[in-house]
């Protein structure tokens, strides 16, 4: 080949593409890259390893080896009674399992909430698993059929031979899931409508959306719950007393609709004007443009924000306890206050169980949203 110092050069042959040079790989390479890449990193790695070494054996002892798995009262977990070290009293959770999941829901009727959970699981898997077809039916099932059937199952219907179970018997994980599901099912469509309204050119729609969003965002959820529970009955006619759980559901749904609206608005603003113009130039109507062109792109952008809202919603369901609804955390507390189970170590078991359950739900949602983002990124690279 001719040297680059010469002024004249004509390539006689294009070079072939070659595979990249062999990379150093394997565990040793990974460790060197990630753990021992510099003196400072090496020191950090060693310090952390030392710390983990100090903590983990003790944790395993408390959580598993010394733990008590079955118990009938606090005596079975009391180190003074047993005369040995006692770890976490999982027996407490074990003994209250039904109560934690269903609250005061009557024992013989618990097949109904169980079926409710199963129906919800079917809907979620159908809706969320990419490999299962007919997402349009899945939407109809989850957003229309399941809420109706679910309500009839839980609340009952004498016409169908299902005795009525008043909502103050509902409790535990069941009530948390009901509030979370209703919040999600309502806040997504309402939030989208509010976001579109806020960006609308029609003054009435815009002003109404702004007022609703800003008013609801301007007050804490606790205030909304108090309003729903205490103030609301004062404004409605005597004798018309909406169910306490229903009031709370409306409050939570409205509250998160406002947040959802702002999240969706962020996505709408990220869509270039050219997308609107191309849709308009083709003669699409406003709703066709929104449903087919703008929203699919805008919602894709804000998936992390929407899932963030879902996670916040699920955790904030614990706040309903202050208006006397026995959600998952509240039933655990109630069980802890039972004198039969009173023991200084007991709260650790109860709260750890609550933490694990909430973590699994929230982390599950976060992981799912990551996988969705990855899939959509492959689907249409810009």
């Amino acid at each position, binding site marked *: 080949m001719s040297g680059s110092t010469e002024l004249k050069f004509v390539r006689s042959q294009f070079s072939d593409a070659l595979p990249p040079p062999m990379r150093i790989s394997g565990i040793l390479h990974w460790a060197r890259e990630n753990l021992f890449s510099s003196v400072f990193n090496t020191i950090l790695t060693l310090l952390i390893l030392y710390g983990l070494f100090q903590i983990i054996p003790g944790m395993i002892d408390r959580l598993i080896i010394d733990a008590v798995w079955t118990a009938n009262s606090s005596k079975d977990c009391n180190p003074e009674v047993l005369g040995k070290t006692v770890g976490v009293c999982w027996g407490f959770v074990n003994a209250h399992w039904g109560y934690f999941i269903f609250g005061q829901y009557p024992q013989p009727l618990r097949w109904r909430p169980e079926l409710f959970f199963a129906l919800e699981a079917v809907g979620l898997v159908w809706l969320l698993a990419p490999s299962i077809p007919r997402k349009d039916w899945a939407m109809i099932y989850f957003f229309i059929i399941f809420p109706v059937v679910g309500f009839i199952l839980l609340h009952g219907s004498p016409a169908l031979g299902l005795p009525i179970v008043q909502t103050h018997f509902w409790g535990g994980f069941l009530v948390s899931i009901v509030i979370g599901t209703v919040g999600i099912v309502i806040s997504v469509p309402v939030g989208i409508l509010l976001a579109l309204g806020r960006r609308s050119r029609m003054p009435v729609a815009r002003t109404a959306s702004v007022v609703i969003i800003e008013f609801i965002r301007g007050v804490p959820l606790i205030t909304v719950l108090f309003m729903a529970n205490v103030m609301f009955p004062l404004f409605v006619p005597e004798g018309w007393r909406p169910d306490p759980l229903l009031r709370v559901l409306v409050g939570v749904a409205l509250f998160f609709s406002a947040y959802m609206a702002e999240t969706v608005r962020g996505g709408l603003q990220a869509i270039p004007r050219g997308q609107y*113009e191309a849709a308009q*130039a083709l*003669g699409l109507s406003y709703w066709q443009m929104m449903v087919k062109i703008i929203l699919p792109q805008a919602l894709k952008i804000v998936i992390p924000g929407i899932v963030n809202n879902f996670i916040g919603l699920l955790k904030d369901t614990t706040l309903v306890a202050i208006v006397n609804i026995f959600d998952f955390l509240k039933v655990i507390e109630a069980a802890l206050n039972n004198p039969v189970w009173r023991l200084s170590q007991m709260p650790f078991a109860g709260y750890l169980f609550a933490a694990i359950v909430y973590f699994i739900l929230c982390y599950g949602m976060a992981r799912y949203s990551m996988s969705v983002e990855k899939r959509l990124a492959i*689907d249409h690279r810009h």
Partner: protein
Amino acid sequence: MAAEASLNLKPAKLTHENAIEIKGMNKWFGAFHVLRDIDLTIKRGERVVVCGPSGSGKSTLIRCINRLEEHQKGSIIVDGTELTADVKKIDEIRRDVGMVFQHFNLFPHLTILENLTLAPIWVKKLPKKEAEDIAMHYLRRVKIPEQAQKFPGQLSGGQQQRVAIARSLCMSPKIMLFDEPTSALDPEMVKEVLDTMVSLAEDGMTMICVTHEMGFARQVANRVIFMDLGQIVEANVPDEFFKNPQHERTKLFLSQILH
């Protein structure tokens, strides 16, 4: 092809002699007077090239024709229908007027085929199968049928612009507007897009093109319009326009872009 013979691909006919009639049209962006006293009549089958310096209002002018921009004074009549705030009439006109944008504006979340069939299915209510047959016909016409299942982001700029042209054609428009269709393209891809436009012109499509491709103007235009400061400065047949520009501003502009 047998399948194609059954398709209704006859170009829609303009019913009026004057495809577009613009009279005394004015437009402001806030306080900025962007279009001033525009009078322009475009006949059926005519091919007009609009040129001028940036900011002269040429893009705004053609965007007024399908109401992507609203004019404040004067009138615009498209094939006998006057553009007013009446949404029904706007939709009617948009169905008949195709538009190709500088930045293609394909829908990135849809495949090429879906980009082409969306409006025929939802606006013209065609059955999906028929819309797809029409789409494939126009994809063959712009010479990229093999890209039908890809997403816009996987195509080159020139291919995307040809898809954008095909997308408009799927609505069988009576008039086509081109807003600097080659300005965002790499030099090697300009020709493939211009070739598509030339073949469209040869079929007798009524076209208005905002472009700086003077070779294209010479080859296909019936008339070249030069705009500056929101006004039409000069209009003439291409030969005369390039050989013998009258206005000083036109001469200056041509001396800048023709080397």
